[in-house]
């Protein structure tokens, strides 16, 4: 060890005047065991993204550098998150508390299976978007800072998935929100400003509601560490207004996730930015909202979730049906995809409403599937519009003849998004349906099926009009430049969709384990407080 680098515990005693002569027992406040290098895995994804994002901010105008820094960084992110999932799946949850303070004094980062699986899926999606952006984002967009914002967005998303502190969760929400603002107005077109205003106001309101709820959590529990809250929640049941708190959390997270009564910001804004940004948003942002809903309602307040489950189920059913109906009514493909995102959110919330390991595992599996498929859907629409020269179903046509491979990808992605076999959308829907029928909520399973039926109609019509219909007006053939950067991400995502559609064992098993640790958080609490923790 470097003799100059000693931790604060060794030397600050003689650097400052300390009244007591007896040595201070630091083990009452600090983690004394040395930190294993492997524990850094839980911090490293965020730290890497912030570091590289900072470097990219510094070289913002040297745009040729951006791809060379961002893409290897995103590859490293995916690798680290893969290791994280592996380690958590084998050894169970693990924790690192920043600043060496004993939890709950320090801010804990805890990786459990649900968080790390979602982080891995979002890393894959970000890599796909980063590669697609090499061609889709022009020099102006890069100078506005597409890549720095992308990496900071990923820091926010990954941080939200891996943090173990509820106030820190709020901070990561804000990190991803501010980078999403930057991405949304990339280029400052009039339409984007219109969309961004609505997005900004309503999302800011949502996070403020979350902050209010966090304030009440602190007022009730006197702690913000989620493991600490989870283990104390039982003591406060009956005396503290936990139902009010849960309702506030549900409202805040429903707003972030675009659930039915508070979903109108999403179709108002998601179609305005560049398509690769829409792809990222459609894949990631709403999922962070449902992740937080699962974390808080399933892990922290299970009893309240049980009591509010009927409300959640109604929200879920309305969200998925209205999302699907909205998709049916759109002729702009991007807005259609926005409503398809909402329909998916309804399915995930249905899983939360059903509860128990079956319901929650269905919700987790659906989230993983939705992250990949919704990004793929938006990228596909981007390709279709580039080749067909329009976003609108009124004028698109002839894509089947012009781009057979895109048509094949569209076939896979549409089937997956509608939940038809043999692709990845089938399995979470089956799990959710079975879970809903098992608890006797036949109307919820009916809603899932109706929503899937309407989505099938919608996407089938898109295939019919945009792909099979003969071309209406001859348009210039788009340049083939950068075909690899454009098609590789789409091909990669389609490969994932096909593979996990045919071999669903691994994701189903992992999401069941994730749901089990979430519903019974003893392992999670144990990883944060190995010795029972501080008072």
């Amino acid at each position, binding site marked *: 060890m470097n003799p100059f*680098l000693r931790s604060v515990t060794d*030397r600050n005693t003689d650097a400052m005047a300390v009244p007591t002569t007896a040595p201070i027992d630091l083990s009452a406040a600090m983690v004394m065991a040395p930190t294993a290098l492997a524990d850094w895995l839980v911090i490293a994804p965020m730290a890497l993204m912030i570091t590289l994002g900072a470097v*990219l*901010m510094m070289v*913002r105008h040297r745009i040729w550098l951006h791809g060379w820094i961002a893409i290897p960084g995103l590859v490293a992110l995916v690798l680290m998150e893969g290791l994280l999932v592996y380690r958590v799946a084998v050894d169970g949850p693990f924790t690192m*508390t920043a600043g*060496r303070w004993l939890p709950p004094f*320090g801010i804990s980062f805890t990786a459990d299976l649900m968080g790390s699986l979602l982080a891995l899926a979002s890393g894959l999606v970000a890599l796909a978007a980063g590669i697609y952006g090499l061609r889709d984002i022009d020099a102006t967009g890069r100078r506005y800072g597409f890549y720095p914002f992308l990496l900071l967005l990923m820091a926010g998303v990954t941080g939200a998935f891996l943090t173990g502190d509820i106030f820190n969760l709020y901070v990561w929400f804000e990190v991803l929100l501010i980078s999403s603002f930057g991405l949304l107005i990339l280029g400052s077109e009039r339409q984007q400003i219109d969309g961004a205003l609505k997005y900004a106001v309503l999302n800011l309101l949502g996070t403020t509601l979350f902050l209010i709820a966090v304030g009440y959590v602190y007022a009730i529990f006197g702690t913000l560490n989620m493991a600490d809250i989870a283990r104390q929640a039982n003591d406060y049941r009956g005396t503290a207004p936990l139902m009010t708190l849960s309702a506030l959390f549900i409202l805040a997270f429903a707003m972030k996730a675009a659930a039915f009564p508070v979903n109108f910001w999403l179709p108002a804004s998601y179609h305005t930015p560049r398509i690769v940004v829409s792809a990222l948003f459609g894949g990631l942002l709403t999922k962070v909202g449902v992740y937080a809903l699962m974390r808080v309602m399933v892990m922290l307040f299970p009893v309240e979730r049980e009591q509010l489950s009927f409300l959640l189920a109604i929200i879920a059913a309305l969200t998925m049906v209205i999302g699907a109906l909205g998709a049916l009514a759109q002729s702009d493909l991007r807005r259609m995809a926005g409503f398809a995102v909402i329909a998916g959110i309804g399915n995930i919330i249905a899983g939360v409403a059903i509860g128990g390991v079956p319901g929650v595992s269905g919700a987790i599996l659906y989230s993983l599937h939705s992250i990949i498929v919704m990004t793929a859907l938006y990228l596909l629409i981007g390709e279709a519009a580039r080749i067909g020269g329009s976003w609108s179903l009124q004028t698109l046509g002839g894509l089947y003849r012009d781009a057979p491979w895109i048509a094949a990808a569209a076939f896979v992605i549409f089937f997956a998004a509608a939940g038809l076999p043999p692709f990845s959308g089938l399995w979470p829907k089956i799990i959710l349906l079975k879970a809903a029928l098992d608890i006797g909520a036949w109307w919820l399973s009916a809603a899932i099926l109706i929503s899937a039926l309407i989505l099938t109609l919608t996407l089938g019509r898109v295939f019919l009009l945009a792909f099979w219909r003969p071309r209406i007006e001859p348009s210039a053939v788009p340049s083939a430049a950068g075909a690899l950067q454009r098609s590789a991400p789409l091909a990669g995502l389609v490969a994932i969709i096909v593979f996990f559609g045919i071999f669903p064992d691994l994701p189903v098993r992992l999401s069941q384990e994730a749901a089990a640790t979430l519903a019974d958080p003893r392992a999670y609490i144990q990883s944060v407080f190995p010795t029972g923790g501080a008072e």
Partner: protein
Amino acid sequence: MNTLILRTVAPPITALMLVFSVFVLLRGHNEPGGGFIGGLIAASALAIYGIAYGVSAVRRAIRFHPMAIAGFGLLVATLSGFVSVFVGVPFMTGLWIYPRIFGVELPLATVISFDIGVYFVVLGSIASIALALEEREFD
């Protein structure tokens, strides 16, 4: 706001505020102050200069783009958290060194470098917002 009084007073005030912001930054370790408030003071110094001489004069004077300054600060702050990986303690643990410079023991810590990072983040981001607002007002 192109008055003679402001144009005369702005350079010394800006210089004074910048020096004061560094003082507040370094004082912040054990007393009220710190990187955030220091960065705010520095950003308002630049804003005053911008009001008096125009935004392009400020941009020339600080040489780097404000967002690049913010990026630098973010980098410094994150890397400060990473020093602890070499000592086997968790992320963001405060670490101290005590080099003797001219016979005086000077306690330096990763806490201070983190605070310096915060200073630049705040300076850069607030200055870029302030300059953007001023720019629209004057052109």
